């Protein structure tokens, strides 16, 4: 073996080793996963998407979005999606309440055959419509106000 081949082999090993490390770094850079948190206070209009998220019928009694009218989140809105809206303190929820009176998985707003329903998920402090404590799914329509802890959520179309 010539001196040149030996040198090439020797430095080739170090180069290839570092090429491996750098390609790992490249994969690391593109390997993002987890949850994306969109903070909508201050820029509420930016991430609201029309279209698919809207209820199909334009009946004014059928709500299309939620609006928070009281509590720490006042003024924020969230569209009703067909797969439903999970409300609670759990960061996986669609609506994350920073409220000590809310449970991790507190309540759910789900789509029934003829409109939207709210359902309590066994929360500690309850979900209320007026004075009525929600248990099983109850229908809701535009104008209904749901109270969870200190938060009032109004359904709007």
């Amino acid at each position, binding site marked *: *073996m010539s001196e040149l081949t030996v040198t090439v082999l020797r430095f080739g*090993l*170090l180069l*290839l080793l570092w090429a*491996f490390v750098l390609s790992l770094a490249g994969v690391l850079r593109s390997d993002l996963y*987890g949850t994306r948190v969109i903070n909508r206070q201050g820029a509420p209009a930016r991430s609201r998407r029309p279209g698919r998220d809207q209820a199909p019928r334009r009946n004014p009694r059928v709500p299309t979005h939620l609006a928070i009218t009281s509590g720490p989140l006042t003024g924020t809105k969230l569209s009703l999606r067909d797969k439903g809206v999970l409300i609670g303190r759990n960061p996986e929820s669609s609506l994350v309440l920073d409220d000590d009176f809310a449970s991790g*998985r507190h309540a759910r707003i789900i789509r029934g055959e003829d409109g939207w329903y709210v359902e309590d998920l066994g929360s500690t402090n309850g979900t209320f419509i007026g004075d009525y404590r929600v248990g099983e799914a109850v229908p809701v329509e535009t104008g209904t106000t749901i109270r969870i802890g200190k938060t009032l959520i109004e359904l709007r179309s």
Partner: protein
Amino acid sequence: MRSLRTITTIAPKRGRNVELVLIALALAVVVLAYVNVEVAANETVPAGLLGHAGILAAIALVVHLVLRWRASYADPLILPIVTLLNGLGVVMIHRLDIAAGRDFGDGLAFKQLQWTALGVIIAMVVLVMLRDHRVLRRYTYTAGLLGIVLLLLPLLPLIGHDAYGARIWIKLGPFTFQPAEVAKLALAVFFAGYLVQTRDVLALAGRKVLGMTLPRGKDLGPLLVAWGISILVLVFETDLGTSLLLFGLFVSMLYVATERVSWIIIGLTLAAAGAFVAYQLFSHLQTRVLCWLDPFSPEGVEQCGQLGSGLMGLAAGGLLGTGLGRGRPWLTPLPETDFIFNSLGEELGLVGIMAILALYAILVERGLRSAIGLRDGFGKLLATGLAFTVALQVFVVVGGVTRVIPLTGLTLPFVAYGGSSLLANWTLVALLLRMSDHARRPEAEPDTPVPEAPTEVVRR
């Protein structure tokens, strides 16, 4: 700040094809290293190159296929890194075999390959049988008991085995085994299961002193027990490395579970106090410290010339190394186990061992990243603990041979020669792969209801 947040899940790519490419690259590095060694020794490309490389390739590919089958979202970086480290270790051991005049057939490298194969088989069994890491939580206390029994096994009269001044082996017929390597896995499961239950008490109760919340006296119990066990290991098995590893593992998991800096401070204080008292009482620890502070003094050279000679090896390697097969790493005693890092450093140079340390860093990062992605407290703690075990072990070994801390007898994971270490670390990697699969797999649908569980009647 209180605000409305909507949360969407970003699903990762499965990354199995990326993994395959990276495994091929890792194998290329190992094959090139092998060619380097053989060219230095015999001036020819080895005849059995394809066969020997094929064994390693087969091992890596089988795990890859099992991942495709059973954990398709597992982290794509872990397996290539481990393949490279293991392969590079085998090549280095083979190189030292040549220096010691051993054939491939009866050399340590072949044994290391056999242990690798066995370790991989166990890892695959773990991957196939353990579909969900949360099952392990049921065995919290069983794992704790198992860990302590394994730790104490070397102290038993018949099977315990003394070597190199430490009583950490058990001997069954021709086989020797270091049960502490497996004990660290069992104890990580135990710590995770235990801390996930008790962390609220450990985190919340206590008084505030100097801006730090001190825990109540009675909550110190578990920490004191862990401390006591590591002191026992230190005193009776004279194994400083395992002792450090176990206590460090517990303190770090305690910190992750409670987010309390006070636990780290208390832990470090206890460790320092224990180490100081042990230092006063036991001569072998005094020797270790002497070698650490002054390896080139006459006593240091006499007591532990290996440390000085290992440092000389590193120095001889310099920046770019002598080239694989062209240095003289066999001048240091135990070049394929405790001092394999110096052997690699001498022949690959600073550039080479920095790459190896970077690989360990990425491996640990992937473990911690999986811990963040996991959605259950037990898994988070277990993944953190396992990743931290690797990190701490690398630190203790590399720190020991480079005189950052006193030299202790731990093995460099995947690289150093040793069956029990390989088996335990492949199992550790299988657990990490299983948990990373769980962390990265997108959830079916966050808004779907949890199926109603029937109320169970508990009879006593």
